[in-house]
């Protein structure tokens, strides 16, 4: 009964498949955005959808993000399930008013009468050598906006499962796709994708007893690598992949930290006012007496995302993570 992996698939392919299957299952699902039609999107995630489902189901819109999201809101009001593609993180900002003042609030404003089942796909983060405005980690903005779900996959299988779950959700979901993982591959069988779990569950990707790395999306792979490297230092690290920032799975994160007594939050987004502050604060609130050291954060610097040639110095890498682990006051233990 175990899934047979036919051949490796990329995360981009898994996302395409999720869109395709969602569109095939439910005629209310409409994909829209800049260049999503004939071109298949600049990352080719919508490849083939216009050909299979027609231009009315997968629509090249005019170049105006507030207009894209605003019309998607109207479409959702009429019972459709729009899946909007924002071309890059920073190009979602023109739609920010629609996100905050309408998308996030419509259900609440209307006492539940007018839910907005729409998904906003946002390729995010750096590591692909993009020029300015092409590598922002914008999750902090969405996390601070009640009414949104904020979901981000770190694996090929999750890309499929979480996108299906997001499209199926009756609430608006900001679905953050780690750009640098688009071409990451994994053995995954598109014919037997894993069951679609509800969003809001974190997962322990690696068990360990020395300390917990709490992370998500683009930083998971780096954390896994760091955990491997840490063995040389005698540390056995646990790695938690949050998968969804809203809702936040306190249970999984805190259970891990209670076991290990130490934690580092790792993400690419800037540190100040970024997701890590929330995560560190809530874990500390809940696990204070289990903590041997303060929860530390390893994050991007608090600077505008750097130009391609400097991004390696900005992105949290294995060394920076291990340095932080090293600062978790091990002397207190010995």
């Amino acid at each position: 009964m175990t899934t047979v992996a036919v051949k490796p698939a990329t995360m981009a392919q898994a996302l395409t498949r999720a869109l395709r299957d969602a569109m095939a299952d439910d005629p209310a699902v409409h994909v829209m955005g800049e260049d999503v039609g004939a071109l298949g999107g600049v990352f080719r995630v919508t490849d083939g959808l216009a050909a299979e489902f027609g231009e009315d189901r997968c629509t090249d819109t005019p170049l105006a993000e507030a207009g894209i999201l605003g019309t998607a809101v109207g479409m959702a009001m009429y019972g459709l399930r729009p899946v909007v593609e924002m071309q890059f993180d920073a190009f979602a900002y023109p739609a920010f008013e629609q996100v905050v003042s309408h998308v996030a609030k419509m259900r609440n404003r209307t006492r539940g009468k007018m839910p907005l089942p729409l998904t906003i796909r946002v390729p995010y983060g750096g590591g692909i050598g993009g020029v300015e405005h092409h590598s922002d980690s914008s999750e902090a903005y969405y996390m601070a906006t009640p009414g949104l779900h904020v979901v981000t996959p770190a694996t090929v299988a999750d890309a499929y499962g979480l996108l299906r779950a997001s499209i199926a959700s009756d609430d608006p979901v900001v679905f953050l796709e780690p750009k640098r993982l688009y071409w990451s591959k994994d053995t995954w069988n598109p014919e037997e994708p894993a069951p679609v779990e509800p969003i809001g569950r974190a997962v322990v990707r690696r068990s360990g007893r020395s300390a917990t790395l709490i992370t998500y999306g683009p930083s998971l792979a780096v954390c896994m690598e760091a955990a491997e490297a840490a063995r040389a230092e005698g540390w056995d690290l646990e790695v938690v992949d949050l998968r969804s920032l809203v809702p936040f799975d306190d249970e999984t994160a805190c259970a891990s930290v209670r076991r290990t007594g130490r934690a580092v939050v790792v993400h690419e987004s800037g540190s100040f006012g970024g997701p890590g502050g929330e995560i560190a604060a809530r874990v500390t609130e809940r696990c204070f007496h289990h903590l041997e050291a303060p929860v530390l954060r390893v994050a991007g610097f608090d600077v505008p995302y750097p130009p391609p040639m400097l991004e390696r110095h900005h992105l949290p890498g294995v060394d920076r993570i291990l340095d932080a682990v090293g600062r978790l006051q091990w002397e207190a233990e010995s």
Partner: protein
Amino acid sequence: MTVMEQRGAYRPTPPPAWQPRTDPAPLLPDAEPYRVLGTKAAGQLDPELLRTLYARLVSGRRYNTQATALTKQGRLAVYPSSTGQEACEVAAALALEERDWLFPSYRDTLAVVARGVDPVEALTLLRGDWHTGYDPYEHRVAPLSTPLATQLPHAVGLAHAARLKGDDVVALAMVGDGGTSEGDFHEALNFAAVWQAPVVFLVQNNGFAISVPLAKQTAAPSLAHKAVGYGMPGRLVDGNDAAAVHEVLSDAVRRAREGGGPTLVEAVTYRVEAHTNADDATRYRGDAEVETWRRHDPVELLERELTERGLLDEERVSAAREAAEAMAADLRARMNQDAELDPMDLFAHVYAEPTPQLREQRDLLRAELAAEAETASGASEGGHR
């Protein structure tokens, strides 16, 4: 290779054909706002329609004065009156079929009520017990939109979705002169034109955006002239002439329903009251201008037309007034009752299912309320509660 040699191979061709895809001429609005009342054409109008409009205008005016009165009594937090703009408000509602959708701006509670929404529900937002007070699906009225112009792309999307589903539904979206300056106005009109969505945009140009007069808002010949830049027709109409507004909107709705695409209608009107009851209009405009417009009152214009043509007798007038008074009395009575509020509603509709985080916060508030209730009912035992 030299130029001369090259030129042997160079075969100049005529430049790629330039074809404007839309003929601009029919898109341009007339030079003057369209008027019917007081003109010969008024003779052609359906008397029943005029009488209906009249009754609605009388009731609409009364609604405006009643709502304003409610602010003075502290029963409404704030009220942006549409006094003087009733022709637009009423005509917008009447130009639509039941299956159509209305997308009102924050000033348009009258249009919402004219469409059938319970006045108390329409005023919930301004009373402050909840945001949108009505079920948008009941009368197909979108929530009153406070962030200006943001409702316009919603109208386009809904109209587009309806067309995709094969329903002949039209959306009519309302916005102010100030709202036309927002990027969302531009994006909405462009999407509508590209998609040929069945949507009608009604701009009520009432001369002001709070204190900012039209001349600081735009340098355009008229707001209706913006239409040509999207490839849709622009129509200019006297916004105080209920018959004219109704006709122009009905034409645009018909055109949209028949697949003819969107229309931009500019109704020239005037905000005779201050921006809201909280505003002080004397800071930015003189009485003379207001007076001119008070003498071009939409209710009086129509009343005069009907009277001159012998279509309005005292009975009808009294009936209209009595209906308006009854509406006002009912509104007054119901608004004078305190709204019933459950603080736990704060958490009820944020998501389909509250997140674990919200459940925690809900429990916190519940405990607080229980403690409050205990303190209130029990003897005062001191302490900080």
